[in-house]
């Protein structure tokens, strides 16, 4: 009466393949993740319906913080070297070109640039630095900086970005614009967070009908 005993199959599954997949994905995500760098200058940007992605390399960035201080960030090290050299030769500042090339941003009056560069990079915090003086119309140093930037680009196409804080007051923005105008830079881009066009607005209708947005 006995039934033939079926051989007991093991219930273990080989997890090796799954493990391989998991770690492959893991390494992919680790390698492609760019952590948001701890920003030395804290800025909360407003939102806009603009859909063009801001350029992330070879740009010139002007930052306006919430107390209206202005900072300049240059991306290209060669151009920074050029600027440092020409500052040294025309104004005899004696700044450290290597330190200037390494600096993430510039946030001090030109006269105090040497002591600014002496501060270790990780201790340069936007809220403790004086920023580039722009408020005084007779001494708008951003004009000088942009002139140098213009020279360093020597006619090449320049991506000028402006990143302002939500609550910074208009006068500092206006002074930046004045500096831009003085250097004949009449085209720039403002960094914003993306936002959808409000329902029912003309732009919304346009994008619904499949028309391409210009900006």
């Amino acid at each position, binding site marked *: 009466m006995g039934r033939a005993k079926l051989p007991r199959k093991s219930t*273990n599954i*080989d*997890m*090796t393949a*799954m*493990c391989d997949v*998991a*770690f492959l*994905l*893991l390494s992919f*995500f680790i390698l*492609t*993740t760019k*952590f*948001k760098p701890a920003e030395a200058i804290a800025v909360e*940007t*407003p939102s*806009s*319906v*603009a*859909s*063009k*992605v*801001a*350029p*992330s390399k070879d740009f010139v960035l002007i930052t*306006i913080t919430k107390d209206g201080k202005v900072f300049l960030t240059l991306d290209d090290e060669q151009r920074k070297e050029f600027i440092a050299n020409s500052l040294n030769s025309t104004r005899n500042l004696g700044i450290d070109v290597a330190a200037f090339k390494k600096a993430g941003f510039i946030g001090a009056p030109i006269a105090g640039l040497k002591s600014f560069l002496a501060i270790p990079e990780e201790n340069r915090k936007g809220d403790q630095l004086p920023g580039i003086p722009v408020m005084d119309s007779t001494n708008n140093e951003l004009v000088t900086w942009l002139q140098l930037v213009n020279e360093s680009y020597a006619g090449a196409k320049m991506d000028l*970005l402006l990143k*302002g*804080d*939500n*609550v*910074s*007051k*208009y*006068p500092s*923005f*206006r002074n930046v*614009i004045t500096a*831009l*105008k003085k250097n*004949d830079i*009449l*085209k*720039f*881009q*403002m*960094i*914003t*967070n*993306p*936002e959808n*066009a*409000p329902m029912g*607005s*003309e*732009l*919304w209708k*346009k994008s619904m009908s499949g028309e391409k947005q210009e*900006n």
Partner: protein
Amino acid sequence: MAELDTSGGGHKKKGPGVKKGKKLSTRVDLTPMVDLGFLLITFFIFTTTMSQPTAMKLFLPDDKVNPEEQNKAKESGVLTIMMGADNHIYYYEGQLKVDASGNNFMSASYNGENSIRDVIMKKKADVRSRATDPENPEKDFVVVIKPGKECTYKNVIDILDEMAINVVKKYALVDISADEAKLVELSDASAKPSTSN
């Protein structure tokens, strides 16, 4: 793969003739490792920022151009928007008139009732209805943006954004005049603070 040589670990090398001990299973349970792997994957997926900042373009007018060569705007097609402190916003159509003969200095808000968007759209429709050139009915429509010294960067961006939202082709960012600044200041002082969107 995933099999470890568990035989003979720790034991002395067996000499010839010594009977081999029972072979232990060489399989390692990989389930916890898979768990860990997927946990980390989830973490990295969620911490990856998806939204990249966008950039809106702005073209500045050239101040150095002779006033004679500058574009003249028709009075009937001009809407001037002024921004004051505490998210206040004011506008007038055509020329500013604040005297006994009339007052066209009005206030609006960034969102909600009486929003600046409605004002812009109404003005746009108005200009369109009076247009003489059917090819380009919005030719005369110009928005002049005059930020006061108390308004914030966000206010300026919001208004520039409003130009994009309402597809206003011609607009200009202009410095506020002394008279208008005074009016904005007075109105700011008397009005209640309002919120922006």
